[in-house]
């Protein structure tokens, strides 16, 4: 019968399982949601894209809740240290960089200027980037904050769990013992650790990388991205934030063996070191970074995607569906996007291949765009050819990214993306910021002489300078924001 399902069981008590429970129940109150609160390893901190506020709003949370209750902290930029041959760092920010002159886009006239002035840096044209460097806040107290938001995973999960209490979500505090399929290959029921049997119309697998339902029981394979994203180990350390000034940006530091990510929260800094085993092992004992992480937690991760994230009566979310390296688009963000899309394709008792296929096709498009954006980070290291380490050179580029890069390097144009998560300008700004300067600029940029662009450029910088002077110190801003 073509009747929509009304009963969903979520397996996995990590942040993503709880997000799914709350989001579904809030969005469609007349369905029955239960969650098997089994143990799932979460990491410590993530940073959410600025537009995540829309998702928060759907479940009745605001940025203020996140800042207050999850040790939250804004990030106005992501700082890249050591990624550029010039030795410069780059503060990647979501805002600004849209200063078109006449009909000439920012990235075209800046390209033209740079032909004669290699010292040009695009983050000089973003208020958020400049403010982040100086520890200032580009946000105004009386306005809705638009910025990326870092949070403590454990605390957000607690917040969601307390929230769920009021929502008539059925919480089952047990582990998963077994999954039973019917003759058609659908999940018939699951068995919990106390041998009780749980049935549902539809199941969400939020059990983590192992994919206890979708992979272990249903056999849907995982597609590894290790040729493109070769790292699979990280060390995590959490250190107290001791400075009296808060840090309003996340940072990525490139090293010979991998890269170091740090997510500053209000009271602590979460540091992750993504590294290559062999390289680090070879230099063990004389490596300051290894020393820093000596008491850190070791985590394995496996970049890739599930071949089908919706299979029969099961949807995979979180690490059961996709894992990338953590440059952008945090796991929670991807899970939230997946779930939102799922809402539009809601399953019915009679299953339709057309529905499943279309949903899987769309999500694959999104996931692979995110993958390619990640791969761009490694591609630029090779394009600038400054790393002596052969390891980096062995990293392959997906064909889709190669196509995108060729177009960009030849013409300065971004490839329009079918993905809804990435705006073409995000590609351009990241590529330019990380030192990929296209061979030529658009003909349209030649409509004006360099002098005009130089003047325009100076006027932008002057106005940014002027507005920066009036901005509040970030630490002061946040204090007032919370109170």
């Amino acid at each position: 019968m073509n009747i929509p399902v009304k009963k969903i069981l979520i397996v996995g008590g990590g942040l993503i399982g709880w997000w799914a429970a709350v989001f579904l129940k809030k969005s469609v109150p007349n369905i029955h949601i239960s969650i098997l609160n089994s143990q799932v390893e979460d990491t410590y901190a993530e940073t959410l894209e600025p537009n995540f506020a829309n998702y928060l709003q759907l479940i009745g949370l605001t940025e203020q809740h996140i800042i207050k209750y999850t040790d939250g902290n804004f990030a106005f930029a992501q700082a890249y240290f050591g990624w550029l041959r010039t030795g410069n760092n780059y503060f990647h920010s979501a805002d600004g960089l849209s200063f078109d002159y006449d009909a000439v886009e920012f990235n075209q006239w800046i390209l033209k200027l740079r032909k004669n002035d290699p010292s040009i840096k695009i983050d000089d044209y973003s208020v958020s980037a400049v403010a982040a460097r100086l520890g200032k806040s580009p946000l105004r107290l009386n306005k809705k904050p638009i910025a990326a938001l870092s949070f403590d995973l454990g605390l957000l999960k607690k917040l969601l769990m307390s929230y769920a209490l009021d929502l008539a979500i059925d919480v089952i505090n047990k582990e998963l013992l077994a999954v039973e399929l019917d003759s058609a290959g659908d999940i018939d029921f699951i068995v919990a650790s106390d041998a009780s049997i749980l049935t549902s119309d539809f199941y969400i697998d939020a059990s983590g990388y192992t994919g206890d339902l979708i992979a272990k029981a249903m056999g849907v394979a995982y597609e590894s991205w290790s040729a493109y994203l070769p790292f699979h180990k990280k060390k995590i350390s959490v250190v107290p934030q001791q400075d009296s000034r808060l840090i309003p940006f996340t940072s990525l530091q490139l090293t010979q063996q991998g890269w170091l990510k740090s997510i500053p929260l209000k009271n602590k800094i979460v540091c992750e070191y993504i590294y290559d085993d062999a390289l680090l092992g070879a230099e063990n004992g004389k490596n300051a970074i290894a020393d820093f992480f000596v008491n850190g937690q070791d985590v394995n991760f496996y970049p890739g995607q599930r071949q089908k994230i919706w299979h029969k009566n099961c949807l995979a979310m979180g690490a059961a569906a996709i894992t990338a390296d953590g440059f952008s688009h945090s796991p929670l963000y991807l899970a939230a996007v997946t779930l939102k899309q799922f809402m539009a394709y809601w399953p019915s008792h009679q299953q339709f291949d057309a529905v499943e296929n279309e949903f899987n096709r769309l999500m694959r498009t999104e996931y692979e765009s995110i993958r390619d954006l990640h791969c761009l980070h490694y591609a630029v290291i090779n394009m600038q050819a400054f790393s002596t380490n052969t390891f980096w050179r062995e990293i392959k580029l997906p064909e889709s990214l190669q196509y995108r890069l060729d177009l960009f390097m030849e013409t300065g144009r971004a490839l329009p993306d079918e993905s809804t998560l990435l705006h073409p300008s995000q590609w351009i700004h990241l590529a330019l910021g990380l030192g990929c300067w296209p061979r030529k600029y658009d003909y349209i940029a030649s409509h004006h002489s360099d002098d005009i662009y130089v003047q325009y450029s100076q006027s932008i910088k002057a106005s940014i300078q002027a507005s920066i002077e009036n901005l509040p110190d970030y630490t002061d801003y946040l204090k007032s924001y919370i109170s």
Partner: protein
Amino acid sequence: MNQHSIKKIVIVGGGTAGWMTAAALAKKFLPINMDIVLVESEAIGTVGVGESTIPHIRGFNEYLGIDESFFIAETKATFKLGIAFKHWGQLGNDYIHPFGPLGHDINGVEFHHYWLRMQQEGSKYPLDNYSMAAMAARAGKFQHPSTDSMSLLSNYNYAFHFDAALYAKYLRRYAEAINVKRIEGIVAATNLNSDNGFIESIRLDSGITLGGDLFIDCTGFKGILIDKVLNAKFEDWSHWLRCDKAIAVPCALSEEKLTPYTQATAQQAGWQWRIPLQHRTGNGHVYASDYLSDDEAAAILLKNLDGEPLAEPKFFTFKAGQRKQNWEKNCVAIGLSGGFLEPLESTSIYLIQVGIQKLLDFFPDKNFAKANSAEFNRQLDEEYVRIRDFIIMHYKENAREDSPFWMDCKNMSVPDALAQRQKLFKSTGYVDHQQYGVYAAVCIGQGLIPDVYDFKINAFSHHKIAAYLEKIHGNINAAVASMPFAQDYINRILANTNQGKPL
């Protein structure tokens, strides 16, 4: 400008495509002194059946800075609010594909789901009832959409019917006034570079040789440059789109008031268009010659005219399909030289426009980077396929059993992506937002009714939704009643238009 910049563009062919291209390029390059030449011959006719458009044409005119009233006077244009499809899906069917939304989305669920639920619960009202554009079209009403976005009178879009030959003539004046050079002549030979196969120059019958950096082929079906010279392959789609001939004839206006929409009436082996202009009505019959003889086709057309024929019927032969590469080396095909899709959804001029827009977006330099033309071709293909599939859908989704043509269309296999999309719509009512037009209106109009509506709307009672739909319909009726007749509205514009200088 640097040594790699394109300095000379040669456009071959002066129909609608040629002059639209010339005008847009001239406008774009006005500040940098680009050398633009258009070669055409008085001896070669143009196809110019594309007299019905979609709203994008307004963006093109706006880009050129053409005053709308002036354009209307100059090209004998009338307003268009959509296309009425008669006998499509099944005999007796009559629905409108409107330029504008159906109802309003409520709580993130598209309107057609609400309509669907009411149908399942016994209501019989057609979907057209909830479209401002469709209701105004049926009533013969038109005025410019309001700029107040809260008003129902802003809730539609519009395009034009116009005389394409007059439009080309007007654009010629426009382009020549901003330095496009027109040369009378027929291409006698094309000289290719022996190393790389690029076009170096063309020789005209007059003996003149014209060199250039970039060549644009607007020579219609012949595709003189792109086909004969660069051997770009043609992808045949006629197994899906079986109509391969058309016969066109203008006739005198009917006694009735002007109808602000295009009429597409399905016939036994094709369909007939009716496009009202200010001074005459354009008519044509698109048909499949495997199923219908030329005489039969002509008889059907002439039997169904509003008034006296004003000229001898003209026959056209075509084949649905697209050239695999519309941009090859330094040659770009724009218009019929690039591909052909029958004008069922009035997309001929739109496809010209897309070609021009993308050429401007991906304007090359003398290096002619492969990555650049590859992306141009990819995007253009995507647009062609999107429209192709949409048109195929009109043929595929039908329940007619009155002629072999329609039964064969019903039973044909369609492109995979389309089949998938139709299955998805049938089983969930879901519409991918990248689809062409008001997709749900056409699916439902053709008789493809989803099995289920979005269950999230079950939170509302039957009465609440019924009352809501009634309110929308009532408001639309009231808004339409307040609008002037399209005929009166256009008369007023013409009376106030000073037919003076074009620029």
